[in-house]
């Protein structure tokens, strides 16, 4: 599993670089501009939320606000029950993972079918996505074929074309049978009241082809001020995530079926979900709300490549997850307080983030918060710093420690039962201690005339 994650993530990261370099002389300017637009929107979110609600209503879209994930699920269920919908088809939505929508709906007698191929396999395998845009990055072709065989979609066959064709046949039927289509939204434009959806499989569009009701669930941070902002964001989201210039299918949806339109859902509902986002907005890590869920930070992250998404124990893995999960945990912050430590702080994520989120700074702020609010969980495996701080702020003690360190040069001293020393020496050697030699050299030179 680790090698498939490593290969895929590395390959996506390489494609990203060439996708930007091919078309732009200074891609960093795009990242900074996009970051500024998102930051501006967040800082005036009250204004844009009001505007987007007004614009949606004008077009006959029903707007709902959900303060929590549970509330979001309930609103979705209420809409479905009011419209007598028993089966829905849904396109990919990380928010629906966050609120665990599928299991909620199935508990209430609504069948929900994932239509993104990766998400479908996750659903059939009763698994979880381990990457934002490549949900089954942890699975091999063989595992996909085994899944389809088990589900009765044909004999074992791991040819990509066969897998795709079977998925297509299976999903076409689902699209026709479903009563409602549920999608997320990559962007919500305030000025015009429309959502933008990007996919590579066209499944979001199919979700709306034969259904009566369209429900959108979307985090309140996904708003963009103007239609023209989409030009920038469409250019960076695909390049950042998959290294494409543009995703294959791009939908702009601004309301239910209008009079005279032959097809399309008669009702459109947009559920704007908070689920602790306003808490994040009030925190010193608010920049993380700029995130457009492209997965670039996961692809580039050397720790994600080794550990894979599940190691992050939450909806979002990788650098963005290490920041978001503890924040979205609210009063259970302590349970996730170790996640910000799972980083070498190399800063590669910051260099690729399409909205210029200073991820390492946010990880550091959360480490500080962890130390203050959940020291046990956040401090696991971290050497205590109190004694060191005393030494390092008193030169006489520091010099004494430089002399004391020579104990490490005694044979077998590296086996001293000090946890940090053991953790170091299990995989590495320590070089000989030479504490104070440099100071001595400086002193000796001063005494002798040059």
């Amino acid at each position: 599993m680790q090698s498939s994650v490593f290969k895929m993530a590395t390959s996506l990261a390489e494609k990203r670089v060439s996708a930007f370099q091919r078309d732009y002389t200074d891609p960093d300017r795009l990242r900074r501009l996009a970051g500024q637009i998102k930051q501006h929107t967040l800082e005036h979110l009250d204004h844009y939320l009001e505007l987007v609600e007004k614009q949606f209503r004008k077009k006959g879209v029903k707007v709902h606000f959900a303060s929590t994930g549970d509330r979001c699920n309930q609103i979705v269920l209420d809409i479905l029950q009011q419209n007598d919908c028993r089966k829905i088809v849904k396109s990919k939505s990380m928010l629906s993972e966050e609120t665990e929508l599928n299991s909620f709906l199935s508990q209430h007698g609504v069948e929900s079918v994932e239509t993104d191929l990766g998400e479908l396999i996750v659903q059939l395998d009763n698994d979880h996505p381990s990457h934002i845009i490549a949900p089954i990055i942890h699975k091999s072709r063989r595992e996909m074929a085994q899944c389809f065989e088990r589900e009765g979609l044909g004999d074992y066959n791991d040819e990509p074309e066969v897998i795709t064709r079977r998925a297509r046949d299976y999903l076409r039927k689902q699209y026709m049978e479903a009563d409602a289509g549920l999608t997320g939204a990559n962007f919500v434009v305030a000025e015009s009241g429309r959502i933008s959806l990007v996919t590579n499989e066209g499944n979001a569009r199919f979700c709306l082809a034969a259904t009566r009701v369209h429900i959108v669930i979307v985090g309140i941070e996904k708003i963009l001020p103007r239609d023209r902002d989409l030009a920038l964001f469409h250019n960076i989201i695909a390049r950042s995530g998959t290294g494409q210039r543009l995703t294959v299918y791009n939908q702009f949806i601004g309301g239910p079926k209008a009079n005279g339109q032959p097809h399309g859902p008669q009702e459109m509902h947009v559920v704007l979900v908070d689920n602790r986002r306003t808490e994040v907005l009030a925190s010193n890590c608010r920049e993380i709300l700029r995130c457009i869920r492209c997965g670039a930070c996961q692809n580039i992250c050397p720790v994600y490549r080794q550990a894979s998404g599940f190691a992050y124990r939450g909806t979002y893995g990788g650098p963005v997850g290490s920041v978001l999960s503890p924040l979205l945990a609210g009063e259970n912050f302590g349970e996730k307080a170790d996640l910000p430590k799972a980083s070498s702080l190399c800063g590669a994520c910051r260099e690729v983030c399409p909205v210029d989120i200073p991820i390492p700074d946010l990880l550091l702020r959360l480490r500080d918060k962890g130390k203050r609010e959940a020291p046990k969980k956040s401090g696991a495996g971290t050497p205590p710093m109190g004694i060191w701080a005393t030494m390092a702020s008193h030169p006489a003690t520091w010099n004494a420690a430089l002399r004391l360190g020579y104990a490490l040069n005694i044979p077998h001293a590296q086996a001293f039962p000090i946890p940090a020393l053991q953790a170091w020496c299990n995989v590495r050697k320590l070089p000989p201690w030479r504490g104070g030699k440099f100071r001595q050299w400086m002193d000796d030179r001063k005494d002798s005339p040059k």
Partner: protein
Amino acid sequence: MMNPIPRKDQPTRKQKLLFMATCICDAFFDDAARAAVEVLEYLGCEVVFPKGQTCCGQPAFNAGDWKASRQVVRHTLEVFKGMEPVVAPSGSCTAMLVHGAPLEFEEEEDLSKALDLASRSWELADFIVNTLGVVRWEGRFPHKIAFHRSCHSRGSGTVEAALRLLSSIDGLELAEFGEENQCCGFGGTFSVSFPNISAAMGNLKIDHVTAARPQFLVSADMGCLLHLGGMIDKAGKQLPRLHLAQVLRDSLKNGGLL
């Protein structure tokens, strides 16, 4: 890592500077610090070593213990107060002074002191090229080296400056290797709190580097080399490590200039 903090008036050659040896050179790698001093003096600088110095405060900063870190940073601010530039043979310690300390002092009363030190702090190669204006390095170093880009130099002038100096040295061959911008897995306390992931990242780096068959592994940061070197030695592989300053100094020596 670093924010573009406006620097004070750019210093000129033959000037006085405060040298931060870094705790890792103080403890393990005295010759790297010594080489940095020799190189700066060769360029005409007056190098002052404030004896009260200890550590930049980064270990506790990265460990999340900002209270402990600020205690050490306050000591460092006191030791290095003045008008002179502060030069350290480490991109990581410099990043701590330039970016880390201001971040953890954001809400402290003495933020201005942290910002003042940030505006005067330089990593060695960045200082040599971008303030002293040296772009060609004299002497000879007839070896093939692999230059490891340390992550805390991201966003700073260090890597470009170091490569500029190295590639100008007579006889020196720069080895190209895969995934040059990837982290080596050191990460300070990360190396002991996630030792297995850290080691897996280190092995990847070592595999890429050794495939290029260099004679030396060189970096502007002894932290990365402490980790990579420790793994190389543990595995019984033969690949000596040098700080960038040692290459610069040895080049001058080989050329009879020092």
